[in-house]
């Protein structure tokens, strides 16, 4: 049990009366245990009662209040209201027709398609931007590090230390300094992707055949041209592998950004968690995250294949 330090007040909210409290700053996470037994949003008996109920419930279920919880809750209310107001005169059939499975609900996906799509686009955009920025930093840095051995230890060591810091902690450290929202998540993601890409770049460059480098030097290649035209193509498969790994783990990491209010699909997961354990919402968001990771991974694999035509004949 967590005691509030400032007041010394013991916050035990076991009775449902806590519903009407303002949702920012005064709820503890115990509130949500007190609302477990309330009806599922997707299994109402009547459309009219279900809408008003969901509306009434939403604020109280925002139990781990985030700075933007007001916004998220109100937006979820609007979605539900829109859902209700769009109903034809006799909308009961639609609600009766909902599947009984609380985990997989296609009607949830259909009804919330615009929101899911918006979150997915946010998620993908953040991932691509983060990986692109880290690649822009890590690949040149990797090339530099592999040229001067004395730099390798400190640079890789620093990156490894940053990588050890848990994502939640990093977001928590960055958020107060950079402001709530997209920026701290982006910076955190760049830091994590950095190590993966850096390590793979260095590993790739270290496997370049010395005979090939010698031959190129013998042909009169300068260091810059050697790097760009000889070493980089040899290291490309390893770099692509690093990019794929970084992308997949970044997609999974974005969801943690919910703690600072910008988590893409994680936002949906958490919203579902607060909305009285709306399982379909959590499950849909989780599956969408996995699917997004697979799609981006496949895209990078295809790009890798296009960029390394000389490897195509060999077994992967």
């Amino acid at each position, binding site marked *: *049990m*967590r*005691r509030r*330090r400032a007041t010394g007040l013991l916050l035990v909210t076991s009775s449902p009366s806590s519903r009407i409290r303002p949702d*920012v*700053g005064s*709820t503890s*996470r*115990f509130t*949500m*245990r007190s609302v477990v037994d309330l009806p599922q949003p997707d299994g109402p008996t009547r459309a009219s009662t279900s809408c008003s109920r969901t509306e009434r419930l939403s604020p109280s279920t925002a*139990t*781990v*209040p*985030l*700075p933007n919880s007001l916004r998220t809750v109100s937006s979820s209310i609007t979605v539900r209201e829109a859902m209700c107001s769009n109903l034809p005169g006799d909308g009961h059939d639609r609600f009766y027709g909902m599947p009984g499975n609380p985990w997989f609900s296609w009607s949830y996906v259909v009804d919330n398609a615009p929101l899911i799509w918006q979150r997915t686009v946010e998620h993908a955009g953040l991932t691509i931007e983060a990986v692109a920025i880290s690649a822009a930093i890590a690949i040149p840095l990797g090339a530099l590090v592999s040229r001067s051995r004395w730099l390798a230890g400190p640079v890789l060591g620093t990156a490894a*230390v940053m990588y*050890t*810091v*848990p*994502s*939640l*902690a*990093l*977001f*928590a*450290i960055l*958020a*107060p*300094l950079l*402001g*709530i929202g997209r920026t701290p998540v982006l910076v955190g993601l760049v830091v994590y992707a950095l190590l993966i890409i850096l390590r793979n770049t260095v590993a790739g460059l270290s496997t370049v055949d010395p005979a090939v480098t010698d031959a190129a030097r013998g042909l009169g290649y300068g260091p810059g041209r050697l790097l760009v035209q000889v070493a980089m193509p040899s290291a490309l498969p390893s770099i692509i592998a690093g990019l794929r*790994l970084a992308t*997949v*783990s970044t*997609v*999974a990491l974005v*969801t*943690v950004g*919910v*703690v*600072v209010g910008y*988590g893409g*699909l*994680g936002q949906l*997961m*958490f919203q*579902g*968690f607060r909305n009285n*354990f709306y*399982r379909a919402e*959590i*499950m849909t*968001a*989780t599956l969408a*995250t*996995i699917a997004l*990771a*697979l799609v981006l*991974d496949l895209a990078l694999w295809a790009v890798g294949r296009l960029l390394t035509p000389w490897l195509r004949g060999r077994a992967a």
Partner: protein
Amino acid sequence: MSAPTGVLQEAIVWLNDPLTWTEPGGILELAGEHLVMTAIAVAVAAAVAIPTGAWLGHSGRGAGTVVWLTNASRALPTLGIILLLAAGGLFGNTATVIAAAFFAVPVLLVNTYEGVRGADPDAKDAARGMGMSDGRILLQVELPLATTLVSAGLRVTIVQVVATIPLAALAGGGGLGQIIALGMGTQRYGEVLAGGIVVAGLCLAIDGVLAIGQRLTTPAPLRVRAG
């Protein structure tokens, strides 16, 4: 929102208050809870992954499965799994321990597998020639040779679990993540920053201790290869 310097000052003041550390539900108690959860999760993961990995590595079967599992586990969002378990009725600490163990298994499995698989074939041949049974070869030859990789895997696993458990706070669980979640909820960003620093510090400290432990437990002849 206050200026960054103000937040930093708040964090320093908060961290310097002895009560913050020693009160019930303070940092020390939460850290203890955190470590207990870590220990359970790692123990569960090790009990599953090390025997499985050793057996698979010994028999040489399932290489594709192991690799696939490791890659697939990277794409799974930890937060989603924790929230799903919570929504399924498993609350707080239990859900987190299960999720953390779940994500720890692939790392340990792949390291044990590679360690046992990569044991010197000459040593295995010699052991077989001396009349050792499969079980003895595994326990007395392959596993000792795999120590380096298994202990490296354990270190990564433990650090990863320590890093995963703070997410529990979002699903109503315990551990040090609570400081961050509560600070966010009450908009006291100084506490958020301080919580982040405490969690990061714990992770780095544990990684450092384990690095030393890893060196001590690795038999001297194997150290060169590890370097």
